[in-house]
């Protein structure tokens, strides 16, 4: 019984980690390559979920809605880059924080006006509903497994894209020395725009996939944004590999901490103290992890080459 519970929670943790990775990947690319702190990355996750709500309602199908929502998110990403982000290249980080904070306020409120403040739901596709028996006494939702698989697939694809293709090579070159790449005749502005829109689409994919298991509501991206920042800082800013490792680590620690920490504390503390300390300690566990990582490795686990 205890082993199966542990296994379920490990799967849940991995699944949160995969979602975090999808959001953090775009964030770390935009930060590492363009040196822009984009607080508005969380609203792109939220927009992905909302676009998915509309796209599935329009087409009546999860599978037709998903590409539609992703294309819409890509277009919105390009628009945001052109209007707000492009004038911010090379500006002070604090000014970027201020401007993208303004974008958060605008989009959160805009979403409330267009879709309403009440939580919405995305219907689960028939093919992925129900649960599957993994072993004796352990049933797990098919959709959550599919989400985990899709996330891992995207992570693998991203790795190949960055390390094996020409676009990936330009991206890595741009990250280490943008003026030099520009001098060699590459349109760095267009490259940045593509990276930004691609990151926006990854976040939207996470939002669209999370939609059927979470409620879709205004501000749903804000908490995830902070966790994604924790992930990219632990992983080392600009490192996709670091973001992947850190995302899984944060997902696992957060999920396992919330489910088991109180019981573990009961072994060493009086039960009343444990029930009070446990949840607080579990909530702060990822931040404790980040503080420790930064204390011993001030540039994260996988620091990008300077």
């Amino acid at each position, binding site marked *: 019984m205890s082993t199966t519970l542990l296994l379920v929670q490990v799967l849940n943790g991995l699944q949160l980690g995969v979602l975090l990775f999808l959001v953090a990947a775009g964030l770390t690319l935009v*930060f590492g390559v363009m040196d822009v*702190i984009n607080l508005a990355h969380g609203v792109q996750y939220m927009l992905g979920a909302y676009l998915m709500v509309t796209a599935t309602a329009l087409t009546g199908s999860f599978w037709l809605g998903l590409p539609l929502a992703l294309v819409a998110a890509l277009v919105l990403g390009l628009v945001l880059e052109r209007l*707000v982000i492009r*004038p*911010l290249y090379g*500006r002070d*980080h*604090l*000014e*970027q*924080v*201020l*401007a993208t*904070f*303004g*974008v*958060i*306020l*605008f*989009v*959160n*409120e*805009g979403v*409330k*006006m267009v879709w309403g403040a009440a939580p919405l739901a995305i219907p689960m596709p028939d093919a992925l509903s129900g649960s599957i028996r993994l072993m004796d006494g352990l049933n797990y939702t098919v959709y959550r497994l599919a989400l985990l698989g899709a996330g891992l697939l995207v992570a693998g694809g991203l790795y190949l894209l960055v390390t094996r293709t020409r676009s990936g090579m330009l991206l890595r070159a741009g990250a280490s020395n943008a003026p030099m790449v520009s001098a060699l005749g590459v349109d760095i502005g267009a490259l940045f725009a593509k990276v930004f829109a691609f990151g926006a689409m990854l976040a939207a994919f996470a939002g669209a996939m999370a939609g059927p298991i979470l409620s879709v509501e205004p501000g749903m991206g*804000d908490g995830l944004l*902070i966790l994604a*920042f*924790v992930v990219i*800082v632990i992983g080392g*800013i600009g490192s996709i590999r670091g973001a992947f490792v850190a995302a899984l680590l944060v997902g696992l620690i957060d999920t396992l901490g919330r489910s088991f920490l109180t019981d573990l504390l009961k072994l060493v503390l009086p039960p009343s103290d444990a029930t*009070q*300390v446990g*949840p*607080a300690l579990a*909530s*702060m566990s990822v*931040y*404790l992890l*980040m*503080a420790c990582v*930064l*204390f011993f490795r*001030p*540039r*994260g686990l996988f620091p990008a080459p300077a």
Partner: protein
Amino acid sequence: MRALALLLALFAALAVVPLAADTYVVALVTRAMIFALAAVSLDFILGGAGLVSFGHAALMGIGAYGVGILMEEGTREALIAFPAAMAAAGLFALVTGAVSLKTRGVYFIMITLAFGQMAFFVAQSLSAYGGDDGLSLAARSTVAGQRWLKSPVTFHYATLGLLILITALCALILASPFGRVLRAAKENERRVRALGIDPYPYRLVAYGLAGAFAGLSGALLANLTEFVSPAFLSWHRSGELIVMVVAGAMAASALGVRAGGAGRLGGAVLGAVGVILVEEGLAHLTEHWRIVFGPLLVLLVLLGGWRGRRA
């Protein structure tokens, strides 16, 4: 000169508010001044020493909880509670600062966020003091046994007095040789080190002082609302404080005040008062005021850049 003129004009405007306004507006402006005090304490390290703290609300919240918890335990006296609140927030800043100041740049932003979140979750778990629901104060603090803070106008002037005092103190510290080290290390840390000065202890002391000042603003806020809750420590609030400081600095530079020294602190006061009044004004116009306020922030940054590039 313009910097001093801006500060004096702001303080004069805040001083005449109770003469012409009703209780509601006085309370609103008092709230704005409390945030101005917190923004000044943040700008003291942000503008003065280049330390962008994303956990400043936690320091403010610790001050607020200091007053709340002492009152729950039977101590209503501000002359005891306020210094205690400042000491608690200052101590928290010193301890977390000792670790955080080992990191730089974005990593510093994130590690201060981490400590802020830890304080937030601790506040949430304080079930003896309201836990998640927060803690209602029985009444406002007494000053030397007198219930002066009960009157909105007295509270307004007490807050204004403290705001002027702390702003002047921060400006004096930044102008002193101690502050010179902070500002020099912000511009070029390597050179300061080459001169044989390690900026770390200077930054740590400045961070602790900023914590104590933020704690004072929290103590005032707890008295104004007669309520403390974990939301006081949330990262949203830390973000709002950064927005106030940065927006204020940009607005001040648009007015022709050079960003530096006292002029910067004037920007923080302007930013805090401006943000709270603009929010309130827009909220009166429409329920969806953020749809206007968000683009205003974006425009402030984009137009500020246009000015900067021309110069």
